[in-house]
């Protein structure tokens, strides 16, 4: 028996541009916030209680904002723009001051990846000036850690994900490239651990679940490709999921590892069971490509939200599979 198709619980309008990226910050006592980066270069900070934009940061001088994130420890916002800058902003006490900026030199659309190694230190991976090159630096010291360049010809780097293993190995980096290859890099050794051709088309997005050592990647075609890491850190391709319409711009796994959301070029967000990759729901609201999806990090799992940002300049918020027992 299927439930009727769900509807968004509310939407946020007025971003004034395509929503390239979304980021929740809901774990504290503060008003729960949603950060969004628009194609017009502004970062909106939405208050989820009042459902209004609390503040708008005009960053990156009008160039499209491709990525936003926050640091767990401090009230610091990180944003990446197409002006080839990554900026750190201080949000303390209602401020929005530029703390630092890093020049990346990348003209692509590859979003950065952030890994907090300690309360004060964190690693930032970003695509560098050479199209196939990835740079990792340590912040806030801005010390370069390494530069990863594949020997084989794989084209432009499309998406990266930096993560830390439980096994005590140094941080690893997964990267998707223009020719559809996935590469696993060992950051400390600066060496490629494994490579696999997951798609015939460029890898548009990937996400990885470090607990299950399992990830999934999307492309401009009609299928999602899932893969696992075996004990030798080799990428093993697993099942494919076939979509109705081609093109995925972002994939996101919820923190509890139960569901996966995909932002489709067909204006729809799709929900899959992360264990079985069984399709569970199709969220239809937007009238243009969905560019980003994000799950909120509420401490109470019942409040968890899914946000989807679209090219139609709207953000839709959904409450789906939220009660702890999973009773729909």
């Amino acid at each position, binding site marked *: 028996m*299927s*439930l*009727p198709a769900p509807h968004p619980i509310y939407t946020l309008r007025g971003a004034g541009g395509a929503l390239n990226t979304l980021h929740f910050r809901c774990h504290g006592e503060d008003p729960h916030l949603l950060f969004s980066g628009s194609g017009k270069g502004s970062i909106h900070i939405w208050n989820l209680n009042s459902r209004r934009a609390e503040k708008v940061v005009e960053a990156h001088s009008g160039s499209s904002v491709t990525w936003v994130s926050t640091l767990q420890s401090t009230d610091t916002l990180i944003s990446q723009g197409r002006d080839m800058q990554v900026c750190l902003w201080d949000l303390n006490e209602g401020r929005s001051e530029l703390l630092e900026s890093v020049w990346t030199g990348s003209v692509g659309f590859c979003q950065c990846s952030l890994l907090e190694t300690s309360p004060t230190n964190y690693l930032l991976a970003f695509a560098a000036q050479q199209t196939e090159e990835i740079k990792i630096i340590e912040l806030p010291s801005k010390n370069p850690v390494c530069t990863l360049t594949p020997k084989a010809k794989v084209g432009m780097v499309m998406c990266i994900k930096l993560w830390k293993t439980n096994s005590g190995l140094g941080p690893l980096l997964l990267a998707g490239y223009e020719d559809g290859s996935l590469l696993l890099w060992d950051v400390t050794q600066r060496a490629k651990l494994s490579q696999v051709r997951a798609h015939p088309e460029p890898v548009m997005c990937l996400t990885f679940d470090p607990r299950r050592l399992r990830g999934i990647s999307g492309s401009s075609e009609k299928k999602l490709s899932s893969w696992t890491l075996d004990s030798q850190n080799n990428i093993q391709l697993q099942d494919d999921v076939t979509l*109705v*319409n081609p093109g995925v711009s972002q994939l996101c796994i919820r923190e509890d590892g139960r569901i996966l959301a995909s932002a489709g070029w067909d204006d*729809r967000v799709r929900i899959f*069971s992360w264990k*079985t990759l069984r399709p*569970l729901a199709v969220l*239809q609201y937007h009238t243009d490509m969905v560019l980003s999806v994000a799950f909120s990090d509420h401490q109470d799992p019942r409040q968890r939200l899914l946000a989807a940002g679209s090219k139609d300049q709207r953000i839709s918020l959904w409450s789906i599979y939220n009660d702890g027992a999973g009773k729909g």
Partner: protein
Amino acid sequence: MEQGSMNAAVRLTVTQCFRTLASSADHKDVVAALQTLNSHLDDASQSNTTSAQREEFRRVHYSRTLQFLVSNIHSDWLHSLSAAHRRDLWDDLFVKGPPDQALLVLMDAITELRSSAGLDHLVSITERFLQSHRLADLLWSYCLRSAPSDSPQLRETLLGRISALPDITANKLHPNIRPLFLPQQYYSLLATEMLTALERTCQTLRGGTDCSLSFLAQTLGKVCIQGHSGPVLAVMAPRLSVCTRSDMVWQRVCWKLLENVPQRWMEVVLTGLVQAVSGPDALSRVIGNLALTNKTAQFILTHKLLLLQYKYETQVLKTILGYLAADRDRRPLLIQVVRSVSQAWANPSAVKHTPVEQQLYVSKAFLLSVSLLKDSDLQELRSDLLQCMLGGMQSHLDSSVVRIRNMGMVVGECVSSHVDINGTKLKFEYEKDEETRELLSLMTANTCDEPELVKGADSPDDTGQTSTSAQESVSQNKSDKTNPGSDLDSDDDLTPYDMSADQKMSRASSPRYLRDCLENLISSDDAERVELSLRVAESLVRRNVFAAKEISVQMTKVLLHMEDKFNTSGFLRLRQATMVALTVTDCVPVTQYLTTEFYSLNYSLRQRLDILEVLALAAQELYTPITDAKLLTPGAAACTELTRHPKNDPVHWRQAVEKRIQSKTKCISKGASQPAVKPCPNRYAPVAGYFFFPLLRNYDKPEVTFDLLGSDHLVLGRLIHTLGLFMHLAVNAPMAAQMGCALLDFVWAVRYHADQMVRRGVLFAVCSVFLSMPSQNILLDLSDQLFETRTWLADVAEGDPDADCRSLAMQSLVLLDKSLKKQLQDQQAQSLES
């Protein structure tokens, strides 16, 4: 001289005994007389009779003695005998003497006596007679006589008694019949006795003495012709097939037995045998080269069982054809069979006029026989087979019955691949159902692995083992599955949402106006736009009734001529739905257009069939009342929508509880709780004539491209079906009477059409006429035709090769009778009232 005196002495003794028994009241005298009679039967000769005397007594006086005893069965002396005496002296006389005479006397007596203690006594003697295997002795005694010593009449009577014993006893004893006299038991017993006689024959032959099997063969034939071949051969065939496996004497005895079966009974024996044996090898061992030596047997095996009858299992065909193929001497027969079967298969008249079941049977025989051919035979037959196959394919594919077409395709494929015409073979697309699969399997599995009875003993063991191992593996599988299953369990509670709206995206937008839609359909070369237009066309037509009426005929014309240029998915369905919507919306002009186009030039059969389909669907839609739930109250629809998704919200929860309460509560006034059906006008009745009459107009005018009464019988069948449907829907319409008359007139011309689909259509139309026409009109308007129609229907119900036609004809007859009866009763009632 001495002989004569001895005979006289025996006669004297016997007569004296009779006299004593008849007159004496003295117990001792009676016993003595009986003992004397018994002593003439006793071979263990402590008695004072010579063997010559005993021989004479058996030959001449035995029957008389028994008859005398039976006639005195109610006399006092018999009752005064003690039970032991009666058994030893009286009963033994029946069991010890020549069995043929005893059986005859017993049977006669049982037939003649009234039910009494005497009859019961005789019945138990007969039972004892059978139990002590006197039948085997009887048969065996006839095997020993090389020349028949008795008259043919006597033999005939004896045969009759042996084969009909259950009937004779049943006539008399019903319902107190003994189990041994029941056919099932008796014939099994008879079969065992025959086997015993055969066994003895074999032993004697090994000893070097000749035997005659003619009486045995006659018994077998007689029993079989009386319809008991099943139980008899079920016992005999397996035993014979085992015995003949290694023993040449047994084989010869079997062959001789079957050769001796009289010609008139050969057929039943052979058909029974063919069904009872386990396979071709067993058959060839049992009957040998009977098919070569005996003309009747040859005719039965090569012609009758293959081409004239078709009730047998496939196994029978395998047995017969395998038998023919097994021996070098018999192979010419196989080739002859292949020729005749292939001709029968390819015969276009047979394809048209014989029942489908028979055609299936012939196809099976054809495939089996071809699969048995060797390469050398194939060389010889190739051209013949090829010719037959091509001709047969054509007539099969011409048929309007799907099963026959499938048969033709399967046989064509198989034969062409087997005959191997320079490596080319036919390949068809057909649906693989049970029947085609069976036909295909015939070609591959021609190596008949005969289930052997000898090995049967240890086979249950094997199956037991395999089944247990299978069970083990199943349980293993289960445990394997449950382990990862526990991991998945937690995932199953994520109930999926409705994802039906998740359709393919298309770039272009669908047209909003009917005229745009029509424009796209006429002129657009963009596949996507045409598809979108097709998809929305039906709903546009239904939503904008006035716009649709303006362009209805034009749009119908466009759709009718439209081709599936872009391989649109669901093209036919969408086109049809739109045309139906147009017809329903603007009924009169569109039906006028379609019905005229049906008979005009330059349409393909497909288009004409489309016209009929559209008209039929439109008529059906017009006939069905507009239901409230569908159109008038969207709330109801929403309710039904809700019920599909439980756990949704409290409204649904309340509904569920109410429903449960209702189901548990007994409503006394059930009638009132349900709202009465709202009457609404039948939209079809006023326009029925527009659908119906124009289609009757030009059927007999052949066009260059369309010959309804000639080769295009496919369309004719559909046309008549459609007309029948219009008639059926026109029930209660004022036009129904005229329509019925016209339809009966129309179908009269084609009532014996060669194509069964047409005949079915005709019968369907007749059925619907009788259903829909008011009964008074049937009597008034059709009075002159009714008689002929009835005889025709009765004729079809009896003799049509197609089972559907027969049942439809029966149905029509019943409907007609019912209608007439009702009308006549009404008239009577009216006249009584007045």
